[in-house]
C-alpha cells in the first residue's frame, strides 16, 4: 500500500497536486463488506487518470467517496487544499447513464446546476455559455430538443455540457460511455480529451476498457478486489495529443498487454 502511494507521487512529480487521497478505506456497515482498503493517490492539475479493475472491486465506491456522496470509513480526501466532507461545487460528475430530465429541453438540462446553485436568473444568463458548450460537443441546433429525441451518444454529450457548465476543477467519470457502441465511444473519448486539454481540467475516469484507459490517461490505476485496493500504478508516456491511430502502435500494444496481465493476475488470485 505504501509502495503504491509512493509510486503515485513519483508518476508526475513536478505538477501541482489537486486531489489527494491518503489511505482511504470503506466498509459498508449494512453488509460488512470492505469495498476499499488503503487507497492512496494524488491527481495533479490537468492530468487524466483512469482506474480499471474487475467488477465489484470498489471503483464506483471510490468515485462516490471522491465526489463526497458517501463518507469514507478511514483515511483522508483533500481537494484543492480543503477536505471533502460532502458534495462540492468544484467537482463535476458524470454517470454511466446520461441523466437528463425529460421535462426540460437540452438547454434547460445543461443550465440545471447553475439554476440550483444561483437561481433562475443566473441560469438564464448561463444559457450563452451553454450554447457555446453545445457547439463544442457538436450539438448545435438541439438546444430546444427534449432528451427523448436525442440518441444515446447525443444525450451523453449533453451530460458532458451539464458537467462542464459550472467549470469544475475535477471531472469524475463513472464509465460514462460504456452504453455506447465502439465507434461512438472512440469519438466521444477523443472529444473528452480535447475538452479536458482545452479547459485544463483534471479528470478521473472509471472504465472497464483497457484501450480506453490507455489512450486517454497519463496514469492508470489497476485495482484488485476483495478488499478493493490499488495493485499497480501504470504511467502512460504516450505523446499528447493522443489520436486513435496510436492504438495500433507497438508501444500502445505493450501497455495494454501489461495492464491486461496485471488484471489477470489479480482476478484469479
Amino acid at each position, binding site marked *: 500500500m505504501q509502495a503504491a502511494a509512493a509510486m503515485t507521487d513519483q508518476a508526475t512529480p513536478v505538477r501541482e497536486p489537486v486531489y489527494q487521497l491518503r489511505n482511504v478505506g470503506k466498509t459498508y456497515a449494512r453488509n460488512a463488506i470492505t469495498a476499499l482498503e488503503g487507497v492512496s493517490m494524488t491527481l495533479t492539475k490537468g492530468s487524466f487518470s483512469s482506474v480499471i479493475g474487475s467488477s465489484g472491486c470498489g471503483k464506483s465506491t471510490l468515485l*462516490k467517496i471522491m465526489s463526497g456522496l458517501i463518507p469514507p470509513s478511514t483515511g483522508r480526501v483533500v481537494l484543492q487544499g480543503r477536505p471533502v466532507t460532502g458534495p462540492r461545487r468544484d467537482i463535476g460528475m458524470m454517470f454511466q*447513464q446520461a441523466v437528463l*430530465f*425529460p421535462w426540460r429541453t437540452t438547454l434547460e438540462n445543461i443550465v440545471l446546476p447553475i439554476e*440550483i*446553485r444561483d437561481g433562475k436568473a443566473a441560469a438564464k444568463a448561463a444559457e450563452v455559455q451553454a450554447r457555446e458548450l453545445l457547439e463544442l460537443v457538436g450539438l448545435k441546433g438541439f438546444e430546444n430538443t427534449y432528451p427523448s429525441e436525442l440518441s444515446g451518444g447525443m444525450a451523453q454529450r449533453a451530460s458532458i455540457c451539464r458537467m462542464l457548465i459550472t467549470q469544475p476543477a475535477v471531472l469524475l467519470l463513472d464509465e460514462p460511455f460504456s452504453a455506447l457502441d465502439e465507434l461512438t465511444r472512440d469519438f466521444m473519448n477523443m472529444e473528452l480529451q480535447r475538452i479536458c486539454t482545452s479547459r485544463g481540467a483534471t479528470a478521473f475516469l472509471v472504465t472497464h476498457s483497457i484501450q480506453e484507459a490507455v489512450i486517454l490517461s497519463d496514469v492508470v490505476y489497476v485495482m484488485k478486489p476483495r478488499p478493493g485496493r490499488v495493485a499497480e500504478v501504470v504511467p502512460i508516456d504516450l505523446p499528447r495529443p493522443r489520436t486513435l491511430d496510436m492504438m495500433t502502435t507497438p508501444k500502445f500494444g505493450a501497455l495494454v498487454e501489461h495492464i491486461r496481465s496485471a488484471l489477470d493476475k489479480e482476478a484469479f488470485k
Partner: protein
Amino acid sequence: MSNLETIADRSPAAEDDTVWTEHSSWIDRVPRAIQMLFVFVVFVLLWDTVTRFGFVSPIILPTPLETFNDLIFVGKNLVTGGYMLPALWITLKEVFYGFLLAIAIGFTLGVIVGETAFGERAIMPYLVAIDTMPKVAFAPLFVAWLGFDIDSKVALAAFIATFPIIVGTAAGLHAADTNSRNLFKTMGATRWQTLVKMKLPMALPQVFTGLKIGSVGVMAGAITGEFLGGGKGFGELIRTAASQLNTPRVFSLILYLSVIGLGLFAFVSWVQRRFVFWHKERVSAGGE
C-alpha cells in the same frame, strides 16, 4: 466492388422487389368506430329481445325504447331548466368540492408520507389501515357530523377519492432513480430543490394515475352520500324513481351520471397530457 455488383445484377433476387404485406385478419382492418357500433347494436338487440318477449318483467328491465325516450325526457328537462337541473347542479357541486378537497389533502399527505421518513414510518400504517376499511360505512357518521346538506356528501366523496391520490403521490416520489438522486446531491441541491425540481416532476405520471382513480371514486362517493344521507341531488332523483318503480328513469339518470364521470375523467386525462407531455408513451398506452 464492381465484381460484386455484377454478381448482384445477375442474381434473380435483384430483379424483383420482394415487397410483401403482413397478413392481418379482416376484422382488424375495420375502423374502430364501426367495431364499437357493432357491439352496441348487438347489445341493444339482445336487450330488446329479452324485454320484448317477456323474459324479464318491464319493472326490472325497461325496453331500450322506453329508456331512450326517458333519456330524451330527462335531457329536455335539464336543457329547459326543469326541476332536474338544480339536482344535477347540487351533485356537480359535491363532486367538484369533493375532488378539490381530495386533491388538497391527498397531495399533501402523499408528499408527507412519500418524502419524510417519519411520514412513511409513523403515518403510512394508519393510512393503510383506514384505506382497507369500507369507506362507505362512514356515511352515517358524516351525516351525523355535517348534516343532511351537501357538506356530508362532499366529505364522503373526498374521503373515498383521497386515498388513491395519497398512494399515487407517495409511490411517485419513490420513483426517482439513484443516478438522479446522486446527480442532485453532487450539484449541492437542497432537499426542497430536489423535491420541486426532480422528485415531484418525476412523480407526476403516478400522481395522475391516482387522480384518475380518485375522479371515479369521487362520483361514487357523492351518489352514495346522497343515497344514505338524503338531500336534493341526482342520487335522490334516482332513489325516488326507484321507489316509484320507474326503472327507465333510473337507467337514464345513471347514464347521465356516467357522462359526468366520463367528463371528469377525460378532463384529468387532458390536464395530464398538457403537463406530463414528456411521458407520452405510457399515457397513451395506459388509458385505464
